[in-house]
């Protein structure tokens, strides 16, 4: 987390508009595929091209997905919602209008809870959602590789989106990022969005304004468009707060505008001011009937809701005894929770041990390789094998890390790696006793000093035994035997 602090005497007011592409197989108003990465214009049918005479037909899957989102955030699902046309000319907008929901959105209200800070600094905040509505995505204009001309790819045109509009309830970049992450987690838990920010499946616009502390009226806001990572969102909002505070502190004023965040230069740049904003001439779309939902349908969707991040985190604490922080980290993404749950699905698994490994070794490995958890080179069942061997004493934690590295680099089975590398921990008491006795016999001076009160020498004996065992002796067993031999009666035969 950033340690950014808002300039003193000022308060930031932030609201987010999030566009999440819905994971339907076909588009919102046509039967064309929504899969990413096809040849340009290979997935644009007559309807997507806006050919003369074509008509839209609403994909009911998109309605279901938008409703699931509404149910997940405790929003009201509109019994009647409807579509409007937002008219403007742009080459990648084939019909010259976007079909969206202005007057009657499908999702109204709702809220999510976010946590910022850790431990004693942890604070919960409720962020209210104003609305979420269905709309169609536009195509893409490609300005490179066309020698001064513009290429149009309409594969994305007509991909279903929900636009999730928050209230201006956030007061720091950290809160804004936590909110965006929470929405990101929810849509992925619901399986309604793949959440891929690089491919544009999940896009965030931030409305940012500042006001003197204690002021209740909002300042003039700037909208930052299309931020495509959580880190950039943090940076873009930080930059924008600083820019606006600087302006106001030097006697200037903030002009309502739309800005673009440039990650290379770490700054927001002016796109357009309110004066040259379009008049979108919204009006009800005459080609689509209102979407009417009955109670039974909505209830059947409610029954489909999976366990959501907050509920899951609560269960991890109560059922597995994890800390709130650990439970929060493990449930922050659906993929992480699924990985963790696959690891502890093994009989006799220790959830705390698993949590430490997932948040420790696994996270470090992914970080190093820049991979997502669903691409982890050590799959969950392999980690479960490994933790089983730690649990039954075959491996120490330290040896376990060695096996984990081997799994990450070469794959293979846990037992085969243990066998091949001779990593099996020595837990056999007889063998350890023999080594301990040798060490005691070989170091009479140290034994005498230890027994004379030099407790610190205990570590020396552990080290000597481990050396003799080439590091493979079970540390707990070594401790136990050493304690008995050194602290107990002289005669080993008595034991």
């Amino acid at each position: 987390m950033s340690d950014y602090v808002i300039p003193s005497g000022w308060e930031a007011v932030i609201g987010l508009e999030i566009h999440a592409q819905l994971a339907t197989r076909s588009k919102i108003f046509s039967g064309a595929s929504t899969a990413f990465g096809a040849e340009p214009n290979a997935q644009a049918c007559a309807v997507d091209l806006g050919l003369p005479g074509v008509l839209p037909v609403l994909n009911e899957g998109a309605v279901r997905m938008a409703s699931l989102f509404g149910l997940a955030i405790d929003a009201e699902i509109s019994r009647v919602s409807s579509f409007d046309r937002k008219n403007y000319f742009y080459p990648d907008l084939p019909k010259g209008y976007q079909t969206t929901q202005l007057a009657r959105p499908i999702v109204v209200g709702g809220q999510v809870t976010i946590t910022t800070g850790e431990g004693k600094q942890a604070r919960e905040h409720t962020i209210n959602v104003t609305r979420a509505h269905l709309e169609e995505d536009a195509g893409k204009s490609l300005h490179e590789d066309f020698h001064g001309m513009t290429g149009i790819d309409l594969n994305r045109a007509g991909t279903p989106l929900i636009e999730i509009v928050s209230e201006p309830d956030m007061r720091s970049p950290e809160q804004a990022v936590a909110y965006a992450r929470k929405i990101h987690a929810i849509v992925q838990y619901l399986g309604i969005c793949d959440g891929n920010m690089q491919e544009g499946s999940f896009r965030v616009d931030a409305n940012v304004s500042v006001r003197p502390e204690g002021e209740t009226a909002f300042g003039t806001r700037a909208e930052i468009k299309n931020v495509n990572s959580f880190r950039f969102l943090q940076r873009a909002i930080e930059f924008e707060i600083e820019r606006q505070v600087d302006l106001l502190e030097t006697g200037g004023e903030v002009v309502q505008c739309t800005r673009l965040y440039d990650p290379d230069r770490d700054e927001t740049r002016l796109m357009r001011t309110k004066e040259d904003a379009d008049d979108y001439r919204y009006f009800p779309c005459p080609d689509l009937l209102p979407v009417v939902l009955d109670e039974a349908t909505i209830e059947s969707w409610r029954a489909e809701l999976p366990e959501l991040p907050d509920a899951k985190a609560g269960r991890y604490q109560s059922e597995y005894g994890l800390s709130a922080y650990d439970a929060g980290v493990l449930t922050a993404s659906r993929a992480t929770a699924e990985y963790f749950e696959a690891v502890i699905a093994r009989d006799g698994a220790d959830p705390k041990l698993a949590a430490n490994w997932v948040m420790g070794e696994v996270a470090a490995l992914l970080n190093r390789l820049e991979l997502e958890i669903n691409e982890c080179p050590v799959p969950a069942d392999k980690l479960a094998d490994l933790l089983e061997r730690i649990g039954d004493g075959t491996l120490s934690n330290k040896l376990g890390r060695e096996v984990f590295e081997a799994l990450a680099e070469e794959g293979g089975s846990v037992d085969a790696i243990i066998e091949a590398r001779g990593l099996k921990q020595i837990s056999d008491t007889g063998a350890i006793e023999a080594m301990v006795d040798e060490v005691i016999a070989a170091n009479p001076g140290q034994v005498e000093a230890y027994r004379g009160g030099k407790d610190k020498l205990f570590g020396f004996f552990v080290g000597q035994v481990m050396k003799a065992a080439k590091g493979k002796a079970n540390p707990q067993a070594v401790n136990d035997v050493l304690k008995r031999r050194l602290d107990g009666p002289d005669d080993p035969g008595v034991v």
Partner: protein
Amino acid sequence: MSTNDSFERGEAALINAPITQLKAWLADGSLDAGHLTGAFQRRIDSIDPMLNSLISRVEPVVPRSDGALAGIPYVHKDIFCAKSTRTTCGSRMLADWVAPYDSTVHERLTQSGAVLLGKANMDEFAMGSSNESSHFGAVANPWDSNAVPGGSSGGSAAAVAARLVPFATGTDTGGSIRQPAAFCGVTGIKPTYGRVSRYGMIAYASSFDQGGVIAKSAADCALVLGEMAGFDPKDSTSSDEAVPDYLAGLGASIKGLRVGVPTQWFSDALDSAVGDAVTAAIDELRAAGAETVEIDLPDADIALAAYYLLAPAEASSNLSRFDGVRFGYRCEDPKDLQDLYERSRSEGFGAEVKRRILVGTYALSAGYYDAFYRRAQMARRLVTDHFQRAFEQCDVIAGPVTPTPAFDRGAHSDDPAKMYLEDIFTIPVNLAGLPGMSVPAGFVDGRPVGLQLIGRHFDEARLLNVAHQYQQRVDWHTRIPPLGGDSSNY
């Protein structure tokens, strides 16, 4: 047209025969589908140069079908997409555009075995009441070459009137089937909104547009409409209401039928000779056993004003896709994107289309929406309510289609508001989404006059039967314009 001997049967017999008769001849083998098609093609060759009713000819393909229209030739209004045919919508914007897909109407007619011979002239993007706004030139009224054929389905009405085809498709947004049918002396039906799929029918004003049929008689309309109508999963606004057998419903007596007559429509605004013809037609219905009741439809002028805000508003959005980027007309050497948009649209659209785009854009603009668009929607609701109340007193409404017979070409060229008044009796029906028909009801100074019949939602079967019963008693619909060629009835 006197003989039953197929080998002696002349062209006049073919071109004047009801579709059911043609079907009978085709079925008993006395008529060959190729011969039938050829006869109409020759008729088009000789007559259409005088009319300009067609924009394109289509090489006929007789579909393999034993459907209800197997072998029957027709033309589409050039607003219906038919795969691989040029589909212009009467505009320079689409002058070279070849449709890559079939409209649902075309698909259904093809399945029924109908044979497409061409694409009919029309007002540009269906905006007009005289067919004078077509990029492909005006169409002559077959009854009088100085008169307009009406619009926007002017080419369809003229082609059927001149017996170039047994039937033609049309579309009606504010009267575009009924008014040209009235002006050309043919029978036309605009069904209930949602009865015929709009998929592949180029949109003008989506909440009004409705496809329908123009033919020689109510019986022919019944046959063709039955093939076109029905739910289409590709059109969300199409209705899943069952389609009755319209043809089978044509025998019923209209004794006791309550015919509503809107007294306000018979005012000074109505040409008195047209009024007389319509009154005579209503008398004929009474003679057939119907009762007449006076009804109150006070708001034709409000309807007109509302229509000329709402339809342009929808059109301004529907026509945004014609931007020179993906299809249609593109200006030469655009210097940047703005220039591409401005010149492609300025050069590609004609004056009337531009006028309506401007009006519609204005009506939807911030600060004007409430004063114009929203109030017009309220007026639309009011008009619909008044019809609903009227239908508590009557089963069908009968009145004029237009205030005057076909006017001269150029008569309204300088005064769009006057042109818009031509639609005053047809537009209220579109606002309410009701079915309406135009039935030939006489002549004034050699130009045809139409009787309008309006029904309740999805009451096409009753409308068609009323029109059919009327046509059993009169012969206006069998009159043929004096065009020459091998037709002997004048």
